[in-house]
């Protein structure tokens, strides 16, 4: 009996222990909030393994994929200096470094473009995935892969570039496989519970197209159509007052050889065809359809297209500089995120006599912006009109193409959705573009330069990376198609140059007037076939008499240029600022410090919009005869003292004046435009601020200043609106910061936040008080600031070792790595830089005090 009891007892223990095990496994394997499970996380192969990459080890790795040993030296900022025999081996090592530091960023970014985000994030991302697949980013990238595979057989340069790209992919994949096999994936993969997929050339080209998405994709034509029909009652002349086709007010053109805009206005050519086009169809249905398309725009697209995105670049030649050699500066304004878009790297290929330093994209094997020992270059965005929208007559499944009914071409796409299985989508195309949406008897299709046919930026950049003078560089730039860029150039021989390059649809201004709205796709006379402006007909300037060149996204050319490029380029305040600084600098006075000053010192935080508007604000409030509150009186005094001080119009975080100006300016704009927009029932883009400046200066009685919500016969003029805006600004600031005006510091009002790519707050940094504004060279628009100079580079050909850089982040994408945000917090925020150590052209020459770790990749 005793034995039987023992048997039962022991059996019971066994059952309890097995149930306990099963329960433990189930509980620990169940994802928390549908994301990660606790069990795999707390195992050593889990979060403990994610610490790999939180520092840079020294040592060596033996691996396949390289022909000779490659040395990777990390400097004190974690920047990799790659020493290889060939560019191909250097590309492998760069891919390895990118994957080591930015694996999560690379994976998430291309997933966005390829419409594969729902596979890891579930149904919430499905709408975005469908949108990006509809835009054709992935299919355009695939077309590039296919086309290049054919063309490489007859194009040796492309063939070499693709070999380099293959080596780069091998380097990325080595590290991806290594991290998967050792269960040491970055922390974000563990939190989101998925693994990266192998890197391919396709993904590199997706990255390429995402840059176009960021910089050229635009729904402005849709919004312009709403404006034309609703706000301006289809009167193009009325619209021209606020949305001029040529956008010329106070603009200093980038290329100085096509005249200036003093007292210039473009005579609008409204042809009979355009008049007929405006009156076509049912505008109510059209508006509703347009709104439907606008409402589908993903939030993640807003993330890519931060409203204050822009850039600055400029160059001064030897006449202007202290050293007698050119100095080039570039800062591209993009979203400020952690990890950051740019990845600094120094690449040396001994056998190719190649030594280059610059900013790469984690996902591409070339330096996008940078310098070698012969040349330097930098980019700003042109912002061309590269998207056309066509409205067709629609009968439910067919469209009228001008000569008959046509069936759309259909493409079936399957999107894997986490937790829900596959989702099938049909993307439909007309013969000229992709169908974005339809409603009733109307359908709208879109055509975009970035997806129209393969583009060759990677070939252009390979050429630029290897160029040694302007002729070679310029030759390579003909392949840089999209996104179109203003390319600034300098070389060690003293040449300076600036040119827009890219695909610009060839149009005169009358054709441009038609193309800035939704066009009639069903009209056979509407030209839907694009021809691009030939490269040699694009504007450019080499060694101009003024001895400097500058661009800040403003108007590309003066009135003498024959083609229409865009109606939406920047308002021009940064352009005015840099042109003033450079033109006022005496010959032989410009050095690296002045260039840095213009990027982020006192010169860099001069706000020309404040300079333009504030005197009007002060005068209007002074002369209004209105009884101001005590706080408002104090605010007015503060604003005046700012204008009278040495810091006038400087958007310095320690000052109060900028806060009062900015808040007043915001309300002034709102009070000027909101009433008319509200009456028209629209919420779309507003006029540029240089247009408002024109009204303020020239037409103080403009009807646009009248608040149409006040009863007749009350008619407000400019100064009435200014006073109203000022009083409102004081009320708002008092509410937010209290009645002590001294405490309304710009740095408390205007702060920057470094957002984490996946929106995980703990991995972000900030908020920090920040200088600048949306119109200073130190671009810092928005509140909180979420975009700005994504890099600052100054290259000095007087002494190439005296070239400087900083990014608003760090090299590593690992939040636990000391180089995750070190440059942002230690340098960028304080207007400081680090030297770009291009002078270390061999491993042996690298100074020990600049070295943090050395890793040698050895061929197997």
């Amino acid at each position, binding site marked *: 009996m005793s*034995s039987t009891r*023992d*048997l039962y007892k*022991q*059996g019971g*223990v*066994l059952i*309890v*222990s*097995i149930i*306990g*095990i099963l329960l*433990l*496994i189930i509980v*620990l394997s169940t994802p*928390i*909030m549908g*994301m990660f499970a*606790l*069990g*795999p*996380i*707390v*195992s*050593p*192969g*889990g*979060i*403990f*393994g*994610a*610490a*790999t*990459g*939180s*520092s840079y080890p020294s040592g060596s790795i033996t691996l396949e994929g390289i022909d000779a040993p490659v040395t990777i030296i990390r400097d004190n900022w974690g920047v990799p200096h790659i020493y290889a025999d060939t560019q191909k081996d250097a590309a492998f090592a760069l891919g390895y470094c990118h994957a080591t530091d930015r694996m999560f960023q690379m994976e998430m970014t291309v997933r966005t473009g390829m419409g594969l985000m729902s596979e890891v994030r579930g149904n919430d991302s499905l709408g975005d995935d469908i949108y990006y697949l509809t835009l054709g980013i992935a299919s355009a990238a695939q077309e590039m892969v296919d086309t290049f595979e054919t063309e490489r057989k007859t194009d040796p340069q492309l063939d070499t570039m693709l070999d380099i790209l293959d080596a780069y992919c091998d380097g990325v994949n080595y590290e991806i496989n290594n991290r998967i*096999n*050792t*269960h*040491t994936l970055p*922390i974000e993969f*563990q*939190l989101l519970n998925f693994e990266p997929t192998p890197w391919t050339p396709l993904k590199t080209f997706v990255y390429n197209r995402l840059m176009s998405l960021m910089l050229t994709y635009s729904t402005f034509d849709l919004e312009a159509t709403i404006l034309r029909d609703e706000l301006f009652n289809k009167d193009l002349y009325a619209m021209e007052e606020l949305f001029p086709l040529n956008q010329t007010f106070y603009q200093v053109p980038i290329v100085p050889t096509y005249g200036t805009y003093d007292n210039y206005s473009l005579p609008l050519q409204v042809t009979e065809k355009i008049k007929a086009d405006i009156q076509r169809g049912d505008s109510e249905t059209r508006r509703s359809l347009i709104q439907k398309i606008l409402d589908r725009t993903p939030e993640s697209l807003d993330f890519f297209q931060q409203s204050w995105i822009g850039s600055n670049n400029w160059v001064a030649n030897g006449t202007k500089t202290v050293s007698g050699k050119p100095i080039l500066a570039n800062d591209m304004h993009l979203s400020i995120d952690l990890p950051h878009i740019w990845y600094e790297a120094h690449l040396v290929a001994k056998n190719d006599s190649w030594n280059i330093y610059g900013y790469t994209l984690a996902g591409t094997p070339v330096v996008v912006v940078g310098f070698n020992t012969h040349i330097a270059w930098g980019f700003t965005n042109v912002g061309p009109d590269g998207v056309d929208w066509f409205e067709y007559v629609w009968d439910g499944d067919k469209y009228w193409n001008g000569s008959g009914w046509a069936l759309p071409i259909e493409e079936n796409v399957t999107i894997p959705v986490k937790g829900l299985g596959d989702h099938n989508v049909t993307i439909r195309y007309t013969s000229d573009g992709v169908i974005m949406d339809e409603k009733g008897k109307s359908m709208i299709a879109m055509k975009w330069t970035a997806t129209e046919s393969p583009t060759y930026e990677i070939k252009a950049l390979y050429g630029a990376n290897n160029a040694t003078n302007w002729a070679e560089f310029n030759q390579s730039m003909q392949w840089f198609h999209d996104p179109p860029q203003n390319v600034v150039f300098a070389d060690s021989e003293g040449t300076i140059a600036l040119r827009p390059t890219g695909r610009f649809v060839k149009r005169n201004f009358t054709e441009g007037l038609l193309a800035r709205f939704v066009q009639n796709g069903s009209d056979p006379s509407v030209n839907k076939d694009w021809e691009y402006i030939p490269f040699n007909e694009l504007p450019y300037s080499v060694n101009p008499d003024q001895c400097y060149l500058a661009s800040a996204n403003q108007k590309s050319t003066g009135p003498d240029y024959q083609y229409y490029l865009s109606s939406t380029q920047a308002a021009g305040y940064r352009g005015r600022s840099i042109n003033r600084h450079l033109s006022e600098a005496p010959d032989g006075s410009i050095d690296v410090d002045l260039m840095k000053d213009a990027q982020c010192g006192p010169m860099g935080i001069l706000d020309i919009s404040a300079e333009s508007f504030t005197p009007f604000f002060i005068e209007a409030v002074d002369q209004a005869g209105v009884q101001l509150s005590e706080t408002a009186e104090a605010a007015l005094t503060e604003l005046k003292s700012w204008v009278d001080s040495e810091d006038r119009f400087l958007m310095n975080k320690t000052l109060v004046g900028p806060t009062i100006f900015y808040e007043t300016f915001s309300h002034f704009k709102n009070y000027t435009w909101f009433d008319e927009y509200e009456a028209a029932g629209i919420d779309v883009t507003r006029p540029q601020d240089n247009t408002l400046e024109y009204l303020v200066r020239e037409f103080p009685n403009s009807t646009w200043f009248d608040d149409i919500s006040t009863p007749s016969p009350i008619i407000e003029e400019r100064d009435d609106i200014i006073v109203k805006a000022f009083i409102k600004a004081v009320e708002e600031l008092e509410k937010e910061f209290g009645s002590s005006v001294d405490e309304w510091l710009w740095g408390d009002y205007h702060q920057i936040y470094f957002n984490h790519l996946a929106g*995980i*707050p*703990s*991995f972000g940094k900030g908020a920090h008080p920040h200088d600048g504004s949306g119109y200073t060279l130190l671009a810092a628009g928005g509140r909180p600031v979420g975009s700005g100079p994504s890099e600052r580079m100054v290259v000095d050909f007087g002494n190439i070792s005296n070239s400087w850089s900083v990014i608003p982040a760090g090299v590593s994408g*690992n*939040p*636990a*790595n000391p180089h995750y945000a070190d440059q942002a917090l230690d340098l960028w925020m304080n207007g400081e830089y680090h030297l770009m150590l291009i002078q270390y052209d061999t491993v042996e020459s690298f100074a020990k005090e600049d070295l943090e770790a050395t890793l040698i990749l050895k061929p197997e």
Partner: protein
Amino acid sequence: MSEKGVLDYVKTILQYRRAIAFGLSLIVTTIIDLTIPTTLPFWLSPLMLGIIGGFIVGSASAGLFTGLGTLVGRFVSILIMILTMPGLLRTLDLFLLAIGDVLGASLPPGSLIIILLSVLICGLFGLFGGITGGSVTVLVQYFRESSVKEEV
């Protein structure tokens, strides 16, 4: 080795079964954690250790000690990781903060919490593994003895 020699050996093992279970789990857990942790599911290594330990010592009473051994072994391996991976504690801190973000709660940085959780979970698997292995061993022994009695 003669049959008597084997029996003596087994008796010796049984005499020190708790110490052996503890030591075995400690050493093997540490080694597995630091060398091949990635090839096994998170629960398999401590569990297998427990079961193997249970079979070797042949008694469910060693379950507690295999659990304790696994627990200490995991602690030792994490300690070695902390000493050799400079960013480990920062990573664990950030992980807990990020969990807080995901859950919408404000959690303090807590590398210690993660470490204790990891050690505890590992120990639990070791414990259950030891009990399971020990129980099976006892049951097998019981049936074996029963069948011998029937034959007699």
